[in-house]
């Protein structure tokens, strides 16, 4: 008997509404997707969040500029150092603070180490989402822990670093830290090779990720998607190159691009970005001056007496290329020690805008992987 493909459905059907999350390991925090399913195919998806909302912006408007730094650690708790850097750059722009040279190099080193931490972890989680429980994630976390040890030695805390300040860094790194960091960074490509041998050509991973969650170039630009996701769609836009903030114009590195913008491209771009970060770090270790202050005089004054720091009236928008995309801080000063307005432009918040577009027509199991490839952290989405 031949299979009839043109048969009209005789039963009345209706879409099935499913809530994925908010408490589920695949949702990377407390995040909910309201999904309408036709069979196993997604016909509608609405992200719901705000469970972790504590109005970070309002808190920051009641305290001094410097007092916000520990709060920024908790925005994207994987990348505390780059969050600090974003706020520091916005304050420097607002009040015209210069940065000490050694401090600036240390900031670049910290920001790139954070990128390694973030991309390693998110790649591990992506595999976790695909059902490879444990093993790849533990490989990733083993390497991440080594860098977190470095952060702990420099700042006193593994994850909530609170280390970077306007004008430089809070204090210089301990003796021998740079040597230790260099050893870890030099060994990193070996780990990446090992990781890639396990994953990149893996047939199962390719089956699950290639041509899944495709994001077109035009939609990516219009939706303000930034970071590895944007570059996986083939748009050459890296704020480190475009703005050349900090000392990034002093280093030679490439911007890896994807071609079609599927989950596999996002994975590959992240792996390639880690290799570029290693190159930036190696150049920074060579270039960093051995002596000199880690923070400029104006920065010292600002840290020692935060209530005397009154930026001139005006506003400033400072942005950096955080591991997840464009992290922007918009500050408005009215001449008082507190910011009049403090706004965080969180990359994962904006990147979620097109989650539904990427998921429509995919199977429900793919939605979990697509969400994983967006790389969200709820501390930053909900603020």
């Amino acid at each position, binding site marked *: 008997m031949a299979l009839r493909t043109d048969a009209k459905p005789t039963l009345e059907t209706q879409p099935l509404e499913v809530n994925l999350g908010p408490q589920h390991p695949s949702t990377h925090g407390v995040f909910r997707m309201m999904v309408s399913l036709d069979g196993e195919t997604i016909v509608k998806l609405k992200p719901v*969040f*705000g469970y972790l*909302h504590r*109005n970070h*912006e*309002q808190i920051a408007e009641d305290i001094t500029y410097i007092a916000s730094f520990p709060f920024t650690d908790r925005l994207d708790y994987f990348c505390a150092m780059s969050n600090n850097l974003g706020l520091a750059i916005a304050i420097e722009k607002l009040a015209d603070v210069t940065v000490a040279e050694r401090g600036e190099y240390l900031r670049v080193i910290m920001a790139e180490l954070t990128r390694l931490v973030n991309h390693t972890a998110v790649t591990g989680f992506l595999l976790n989402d695909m059902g490879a429980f444990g093993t790849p994630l533990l490989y990733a976390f083993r390497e991440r822990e080594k860098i977190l040890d470095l952060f702990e030695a420099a700042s006193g805390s593994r994850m909530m670093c609170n280390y970077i300040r306007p004008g430089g860094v809070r204090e210089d790194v301990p003796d021998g830290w740079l040597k230790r960091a260099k050893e870890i960074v030099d060994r990193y490509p070996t780990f990446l090779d090992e990781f890639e041998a396990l994953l990149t050509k893996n047939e199962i991973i390719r089956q699950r990720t290639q041509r899944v969650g495709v994001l077109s170039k035009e*939609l990516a*630009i*219009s*939706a*303000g*998607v930034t970071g590895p996701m944007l570059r996986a769609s083939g*748009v050459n*836009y890296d704020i480190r190159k*475009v703005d050349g903030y900090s000392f990034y114009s002093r280093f030679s590195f490439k911007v890896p691009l994807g071609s079609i913008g599927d989950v596999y491209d996002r994975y590959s771009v992240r792996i390639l970005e880690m290799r570029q970060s290693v190159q930036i770090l190696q150049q920074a270790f060579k270039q960093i001056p051995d002596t000199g202050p880690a923070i400029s005089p104006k920065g010292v004054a600002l840290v020692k007496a935060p209530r005397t720091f009154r930026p001139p009236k*005006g*506003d400033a*928008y400072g*942005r950096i290329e955080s591991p997840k995309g*464009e992290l*922007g801080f*918009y500050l*408005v000063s009215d001449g008082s020690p507190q910011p*009049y*307005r403090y*706004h965080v*432009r969180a990359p994962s*918040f*904006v990147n*979620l*805008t*097109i989650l539904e577009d990427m998921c429509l027509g995919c199977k429900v199991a793919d939605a979990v992987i697509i969400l994983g490839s967006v790389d969200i952290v709820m501390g930053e989405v*909900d*603020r």
Partner: protein
Amino acid sequence: MLPSPESLKETLQAQLPGIGLSIEGEGFGVEVKDWVSVCRYLKTAPALELDYLSDLTAVDYPPDRIEVVCHLYSMKQKHGPLTLRVKLNRAHPVVDSVTAVWRSAEFQEREVYDLFGVTFTHHPDLRRILMWDGFEGYPMRKDYVVEDQDVLEKPA
């Protein structure tokens, strides 16, 4: 490189006759009625191509005004930012949505609606985003009173 605000203002007024435009710092203040048409022009004009709305937020200036502020960049030509502001009446803050121009405004406008109470007309899905449905008040306004967490029950 972006042209200077003065020359950009001349271009804009020549292209879109009758618009109200004022130079504010590095960017422009736009009138409510011209908000979407100015945005659409800035996105499509070949010399500018500001195709990337990076950031959209609001600032509350009691007692009478709320400003919606946005920062525009160009991904094609790699220039920016251009800051646009629109002043709204604080009692009834209403402005057209720019989601049709830049998709990235969708969630950011919802956030401004949620925290500042600005209504964006023609927005595809204007609901609260961070606070829950049924929440009253707009927490980012300067006159919002934070509840006292030490009080377990409100006195009758």
